[in-house]
């Protein structure tokens, strides 16, 4: 996968560029628009002055500038140039307004529809390039079975279990961490389940979720675990992790998708 490089500019849609950046003042205005392919619509009442595509916050932003946070994987990746190839992997966006970066909504128009920016770590049997899963248990067993279109996570015994995605991710710039799960079976310790971002996964009986967590318990049917990331700032990376305990029991479920919006 190509590395992303910072791209800075204004306007878009020129002779060389394969995308455009447009301001819309409301969600409905954006939804009604049918612009050309790879038009990025930014919903804001502050005029857009310039735009920056970069993995980290640019240092020289002025009022109205939009920062498109980029990574190495995106469901809305696009080639920024008409003739050559510079692939951009947008993950999210913020705008510099009155001296501070603020969250603004935006979407990209591709294949005739408006799409949200998201980073998919795992989807229906496939990990994004470079990503994988690991599992540990302190005094029982924790296992991952990779199926054709999902993976089954199982914790067994009288133990704590931790399941985590490798490598760590940088949550800053994303709004929500999500995991789609289904087919829960068995029993887990009540009030023991946590989903979120962990700083350390070395000790299954002492996993730290320093920024908080989304609790979970045994569920039925299909469910989406969601953890708010909007205030997770800084350059610290974390493991996407899920933690629960079992007492002389087995608890398992299927994971269908893990992603960040």
């Amino acid at each position, binding site marked *: 996968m190509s590395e992303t490089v910072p791209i800075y500019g204004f306007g878009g849609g020129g002779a060389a560029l394969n995308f455009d950046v447009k301001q819309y003042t409301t969600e409905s205005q954006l939804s009604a628009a049918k612009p050309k392919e790879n038009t990025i619509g930014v919903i804001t009442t502050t005029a857009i002055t310039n735009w920056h595509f970069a993995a980290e916050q640019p240092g020289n932003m002025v009022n109205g500038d939009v920062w498109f946070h980029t990574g190495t994987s995106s469901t809305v990746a696009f080639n920024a140039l008409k003739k050559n190839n510079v692939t951009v992997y947008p993950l999210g966006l913020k705008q510099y307004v009155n001296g501070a970066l603020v*969250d603004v*909504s935006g979407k990209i128009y591709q294949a005739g529809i408006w799409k949200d920016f998201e980073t998919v770590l795992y989807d229906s049997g496939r990990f994004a390039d470079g990503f994988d899963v690991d599992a540990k248990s302190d005094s029982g067993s924790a296992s991952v079975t990779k199926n054709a279109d999902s993976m089954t996570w199982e914790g067994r015994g009288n133990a704590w279990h931790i399941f985590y995605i490798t490598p760590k991710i940088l949550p800053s710039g994303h*709004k*929500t961490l999500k995991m789609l799960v289904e087919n829960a079976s068995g029993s887990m310790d009540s*009030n*023991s*389940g*946590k989903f979120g971002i962990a700083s350390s996964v070395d000790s299954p009986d002492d996993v730290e*979720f*320093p*920024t*908080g*967590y*989304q*609790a*979970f*318990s045994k569920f039925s049917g299909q469910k989406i675990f*969601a*953890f*708010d*990331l*909007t*205030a*997770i*700032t*800084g350059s610290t990376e974390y493991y996407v992790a899920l933690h629960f305990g079992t007492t002389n029991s087995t608890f398992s479920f299927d994971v269908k998708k893990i992603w960040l919006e």
Partner: protein
Amino acid sequence: MKIYIDTEFCCHTTNPNGAFREVILSEAALVFFSNKCTAFIEGCRLKPEGETWIREDGFVFSGDEMITPWKPYDELAAAQAQYEADLAEAAAAYQEGVNSAYDL
């Protein structure tokens, strides 16, 4: 430890005007907030189990309990680090005083 939440589930450690409601902390929440300084606690949002928080962009968080920062986490981490450093300094000073007393 008493934690109060407001209508946006933001945490408060005092309730001077009675505008907030006290939360009965789950075991997990008790562990999470234990040994945390006021600045850290009050920079967090606690959505109790069974309640719903609608984020500014319209995304709905419902169901099980969620704890997440609402202030930039960098600030909370820095406040907590300073708090722990102050505690360590105070403990060291206390121990030094104790040691001095035994030396007399």
